[in-house]
């Protein structure tokens, strides 16, 4: 039974070996802000942070993250990027948005004033089919308000 630390809280979860972190977050912990859109590591919708680094939770086995700090969108709800995304209209259907914000939060934590190219590089792993990209770029550029 892996012991997880998610958004600063400790959880003991019952999961078979081979279970993904995304599945445990969504189905056992009720943290459905993390979305699964491809379930094979191609789209970025399931992005969470592991010790501050963005990872794909659909490809991450839950047993491999024991003892490390997992941060999901629920742990970033008060991050200024959330307001920045809404202000810039950087979301349409919103299904990829939590993953975008989790990636963006890691980006601005490492580099508080990213250039346009740095944003494009850092966010290229998060697909948005609605095409909110110009507004995402704007939201991250102006994240501090």
């Amino acid at each position, binding site marked *: 039974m892996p012991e997880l630390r998610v958004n600063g809280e400790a959880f003991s979860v019952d999961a078979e070996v081979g279970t993904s972190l995304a599945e445990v977050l*969504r*189905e056992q912990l*009720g*943290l*459905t*802000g*993390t*979305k*699964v*859109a*491809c*379930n*094979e590591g*191609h*789209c970025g*919708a399931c992005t969470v942070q592991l010790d501050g680094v963005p990872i794909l939770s659909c490809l991450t086995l839950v047993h491999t993250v024991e003892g490390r700090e997992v941060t*999901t*969108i*629920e742990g970033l*709800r008060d991050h200024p990027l*959330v*307001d920045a*995304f*809404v*202000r810039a*209209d950087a*979301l*349409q*259907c*919103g*299904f*990829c*948005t*939590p993953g975008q*914000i989790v990636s963006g939060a890691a980006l601005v934590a490492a580099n508080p004033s990213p250039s346009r190219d740095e*944003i*494009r*590089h850092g*966010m*290229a*792993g*998060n*697909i*948005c*089919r*609605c*095409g*909110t*990209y*110009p*507004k*995402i*770029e704007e939201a991250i550029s102006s994240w501090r308000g």
Partner: protein
Amino acid sequence: MARLIRTEKEVEGRYTEQWIVVEEDTLDQWPDGPLEEVGRPAARIDGLQRARGEARYTADVQLPGMLHAAVLRSPHAHARVTRIDVEPARQAEGVRGVVGPLTDEIGYQGQAVAGVAAETLAQAQAAIELIDVEWEVLEPLLDPDEAIRQGALVGERTEERGDVERGFAEADVVVEGVYRTQTVLHNSMETHQAVCEWEARDRLTVYISTQFVWGVREDVAEHYGLPPDHVRVVCRFMGGGFGSKNGPGDYTYIAADLARETGRPVRCALTRREENLDSGNRNATVQRLKAGARSDGTLTALEGEFVNATGWDGWLSSTGGPMEMLYACENMKLVERGAKLNTAPMKAFRAPGFVEGTFGLECLMDELAGKLELDPLELRRRNHSDADATDGRPFSSKNLLECYRRAEPHWARADEVRARSEGSWRHGIGLASQIWYGGGGPPSYAWVRVGADGRAVVITAMQDIGTGTATAMAQIAAEELTLPLDRVDVSLGDTARGPYASISAGSSTVPSMGPAVRAAAADAARQILEIAAQRFELEERTLSLHKGRIVSANGGSWPLEHVTELLESGQILGKGSRGPNPTGMRVLTFGVQVAEVAVDVETGEVRVDRIAAIHDVGRVINPLGASSQVEGGIIQGLGHTLSEERLLDPRSGTVLTQTLDSYRMPTIADVPEIVTELLDIPDAHLTNLGSKGLGEPPIIPTSAAIANAIRDATGADVRSLPITREEMLRALREAQERRKEPVGAPAA
């Protein structure tokens, strides 16, 4: 008074004639320009819920005791099921129910054959593998031209006006070309899915990711022989559809059948790979086009033969529509045929037919401009249609010439753009026009409820599929009630909690729903003033609402709550409906886009640097959300133009691009500068708002504008989408060979 009318109803360019009961639309339109709330940029009212991960999509619905379904799908494109035994699946661990076989005739890879419900998705997927099937594999029919030769048709349409032979005889210049567009996949981020729960033997609740809760209700009720009011359909938040989610699918019925069999709620969600097999597509097309014009550019004849690779099922989208409608041309002849193939059925995809057809037509127009040595923008002006090209009906409004005028500063960048060419990189500029529907129509209804606290709720069972329509409705109600936007909520996405509302397809939600919401808010406002007149012993006609206050012509002014608080737990309920479209008029949207590109003539790499989009869609409710729609449409169009293609194995007909690494959609790194200009001129004949839809127009001219910019940059005619490096290099070689030919030689 309710009026019964017989009217044409249009969705995605498909017309049906039907009876509709409409209320008269008695409100005058608001004055032009930004008002207090309408016409001003507004952040989405549900943006925080979505951004914070609080919004519950169908994918997030977890019901007590819910089972998970997996679907056995055909691995073959064309086959017969000669024997099937589902019993081993029924005996597998965790399995609670099995449905199937659903069919024995397989028409495409991915077609559903059986379904299994189990305690976990992994158990259901494991059980599917145990189903014992014998397939008789048959030769798949994959070539649309071959299907037409064999008479395997899904639909056929011919349209003719004038005399094309005479038209070509009168032409000084004739151009011809064969254009091809590829099959593209919607790939909404939330896959097609439903959770079904029987709440009684004859009462079913369906949670579903859909663009039309009422359409799902109607189809599901009919399927199970239930009164429609015994089927409740819920879609509160929705992760994208783009036309692929206009109704229920096999997954809906598999979930409902398994839920009935097991007595437990069942989720059936497509995996991403299933999504790329069996959730619809924009069908590929072959377009054989011919245009004739006088030396001054006036079109004398247009002729097109269009083949849609429709697939195993679907409908004939109007690839010839732009040729038929965009320009004034007296002589026009088209034939459209849908090929029945062993490929997955097409579904509507953001301006179905018109995206494909505009690529062909608008590329041909630029080839014509080249031959005539005429400016492409001027050529389009000279063929502007002042009335509907098909039947001469007047337009309810058309400001395409104004769009062209507004395009001039972007078009005038041509010299500056071309001058950027350096080394193997050539820069160029191109444009394309668009025409589309987007007028919406009745029936659609809304209620507006005002409580004692002076807050309002718009209640209507429409859906917001990500386009921001909920916010637009709140702005409209806020404007009419003179309330700030943060005092208006919107309740939507549940057939049990509001009146009938329009499908969210065909750029119709705002033009269909907006007028109904305004009428409902006006009804509530009228009731508030009636009550205020009695409360303050004033004549009602001296009272009005202003900035959330009741204002008397005699000078008095009271906060709205001074009246509404009298209600205590009571409420004011306004109701409104969508009035008719203007009779005898065509309601359409228009626009033009200008693209700037760079082409590496050594490698065939194409980069789009800038796209300016100028559209005439009537009054704009939310300029911020509207610019997002334009950007989203252009970015999808960019994918259609440069990178996206469903590839089939040419022998077996199986799909090679089932994953998002092989099916290449644009990322943030691919996005050009996008400039959005909306004319924002209300359509004086259309409803109490004068607003048309905007979801589809921006995707329509994108690929043609890019292809025309490539021609400007390199002299090469790209005629096939996507413009891969191979296609680009082929077109460059062809252009080079053409240049080598001696002057006066016949054109290839």
